[in-house]
């Protein structure tokens, strides 16, 4: 299925309550208005230069946007990244494939399981490891939980970007349920390191499926409540509708993926287009909106969260029994409980810890849909136990560079809100 068919002729949808009588301006009109604004301000005007970030209290992470202002309007933006650079890709060259998994947690620390998952999928493709069905289902559940926690946090922060302080903490309260589930699952709340090459590190604990189902049933009610709260808020609507326009063409030009691309009318979702884990065995819809503005990005994420809950429910019902880690001595780190009893497993463990897995020569690029967009991992292997070169094409990096066309012509008040709407995490950007 080609994901890049976008339908610009699609009717403009009107989601704005209470504004039904007034049709929303089309994307072209909004872009023309933005261009006019820029035309008006660029000239002999004296501008002042301010630095939004890295020490601005509301900028997301340590991102820097040096902004030239003409009055309240942003005339020019120069993005600056690199303040959180930790050399993750270089670290990969000095670790075996197993040892790199905890490092991937620190890429996008708000959806660390997705990062583990993307990396493991790439390595498994390189090694040709067959992941057991149960592990695929568990991964799908964990990935969707991760998407939920990421989007809920995003929602709180996004509303706070427009000045409402309370919503942030309400969202944190609900994110807590998901973090509790992760804690039961793997012991960690933020940096999960739950994925392993060939499966996952632990089976689902007793009662976990029940608890998870409760959360998946409970969250959609909460989401409906949020949506009521936000969609009925005239101030938020006034602020979010029609700003930060980024059309499908812009998205393709700047390699923007994920909810931002889907808000521009492109039904591109790797979970559907190039299925991995158990996504081809569950039934879900790709959330698409057509107005390409900040408000539609909010709508896309709300829909995605509902779909995530439905995916989790389906997976929990259909999780097959069986092993949760592949039986593949050459590539998979054996479980600790076998290592202490079984001689073969002990040898396998010894080899993997002291030498590393046996990897064929070659290179691989594998991309999956993480909460923020498409995350691709490119690995070059020279046949050794460590990658010769590893590159992570993280969504935030591309999203963070697309800031000048997004900001310019908008008002300073919306800068943080627009930046938040494309969902950038700096750990993911700088690596």
């Amino acid at each position: 299925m080609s994901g890049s068919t976008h339908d610009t002729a699609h009717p403009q949808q009107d989601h704005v309550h209470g504004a039904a009588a007034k049709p929303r301006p089309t994307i072209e009109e909004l872009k023309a208005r933005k261009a006019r604004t820029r035309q008006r301000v660029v000239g002999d005007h004296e501008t002042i230069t301010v630095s939004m970030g890295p020490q601005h209290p509301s900028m997301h992470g340590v991102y820097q946007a040096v902004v030239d202002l003409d009055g309240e309007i942003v005339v020019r933006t120069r993005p600056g990244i690199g303040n959180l650079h930790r050399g993750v890709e270089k670290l990969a060259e000095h670790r075996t494939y197993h040892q790199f998994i905890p490092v991937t947690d620190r890429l996008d620390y708000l959806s660390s399981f997705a990062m583990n998952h993307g990396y493991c999928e790439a390595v498994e493709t390189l090694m040709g490891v067959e992941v057991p069905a149960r592990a695929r289902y568990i991964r799908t559940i964990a990935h969707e939980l991760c998407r939920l926690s990421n989007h809920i946090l995003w929602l709180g922060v996004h509303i706070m970007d427009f000045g409402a302080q309370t919503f942030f903490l309400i969202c944190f309260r609900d994110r807590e349920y998901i973090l509790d589930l992760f804690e039961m699952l793997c012991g960690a709340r933020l940096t999960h390191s739950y994925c392993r090459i060939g499966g996952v590190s632990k089976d689902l604990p007793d009662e976990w499926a029940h608890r998870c189902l409760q959360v998946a049933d409970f969250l959609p009610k909460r989401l409906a409540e949020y949506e009521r709260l936000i969609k009925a808020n005239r101030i938020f609507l006034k602020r979010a509708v029609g700003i930060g326009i980024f059309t499908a063409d812009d998205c393709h030009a700047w390699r923007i993926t994920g909810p931002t691309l889907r808000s521009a009318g492109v039904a591109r979702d790797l979970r559907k287009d190039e299925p991995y884990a158990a996504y081809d065995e569950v039934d879900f819809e790709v959330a698409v909106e057509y107005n390409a503005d900040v408000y539609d990005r909010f709508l896309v994420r709300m829909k995605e969260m509902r779909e995530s809950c439905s995916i989790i429910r389906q997976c929990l019902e259909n999780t097959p029994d069986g092993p949760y880690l592949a039986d593949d001595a050459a590539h998979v780190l054996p479980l600790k409980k076998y290592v202490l009893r079984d001689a073969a497993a002990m040898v396998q463990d010894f080899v993997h810890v002291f030498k590393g897995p046996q990897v064929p020569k070659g290179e691989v690029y594998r991309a999956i849909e993480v909460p923020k967009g498409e995350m691709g991992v490119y690995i070059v292997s020279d046949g050794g136990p460590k990658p010769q070169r590893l590159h992570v094409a993280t969504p935030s990096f591309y999203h963070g560079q697309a800031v000048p066309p997004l900001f310019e012509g908008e008002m300073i008040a919306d800068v943080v809100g627009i930046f938040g709407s494309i969902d950038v995490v700096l750990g993911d950007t700088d690596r």
Partner: protein
Amino acid sequence: MSDSAVQFFFLLIKAILWVAVGVGMVPFIIYFERKFAGFFQSRVGPTYAGPWGSLQSFGDMAKLLSKEDLTPDTADKPVFRLAPYILFVPGFLVMALVPFGALGKDIFGYQVDLVIADFDAGVIMFLALGSIAVYGIVFAGWASNNHWSLLGGLRQGAQMISYELSMGLALVGVILVSNSLNFSEIVRGQSGNFWHWYFIPQIVSFAIFFVASIAELNRAPFDLAEAEQELVAGHLTEYSGMRWGLFQFGEYVNMVVMSAVIATLFFGGYKAPFTFLEFVPGFMWLLAKVLFFIFMYMWIRWTLPRYRYNQLMDIGWKIFLPLAIANLAVTAIIVSVV
């Protein structure tokens, strides 16, 4: 003792008491704000300092006093230091205009006016002092020599000009109805049960005045001057220690004063809602009304997102100003006919 000496003595007592009440309320209002914010946000708020955290504000004050008072090298130093005082001194002056009891009350055989300044142009004075207070923020923004501060100061200046117009026009409606510019007279015009209060005939005025007062107090959703998400801290960016504390203090004093003014102009001031409740002293009613409006300000602040700058201007000029003028015209016609 001569009569004028007694009156002076009472004036002194009234002034001291009134300022003490105003100042003494502020730490507790800050505490309530934090507690309310906690309740709104499903957390508990301050709990450590004193019983239920009630001494939190005093702890904060001690902390602020012990902090270094920084003045940036490039700042316009005298103006920078003066700015916080310009913000909060007018607040106290407005307090002098607000009656907290009837005129000529009999206390120990003396006729005492339960208002500090029974001033015939009270409403005009209130508007004038409000205009002066904004200079505190504008000066702070300018003198800090910082881009964020400058933007904050300019925003507040523009906001004030836009909203003061509608605020003043909204007040003219009340003035027409009460036929006086004197706060005591206005309260006396609202004698009787609560349906004699001016918020019923002047409901539009009240709505405009209340919203404009939020803008004047620089609180969410109109806190554009110090919008954290946009301007770091706006005019407060370069302030530290107790000088920053003075700004906060001034804002809360202004909040108390503004609530008192709203209560006086629209909600019968020190009058009881029902005449049979008049055995409760007038200042208790005033206090209750003040606390109610302070709660309203807090409720709004912790609920709503912030307006964008151009939207704020739109509301001020395109909605409130025409509405205030229409209200004024209707009121004028009704008052002249009836």
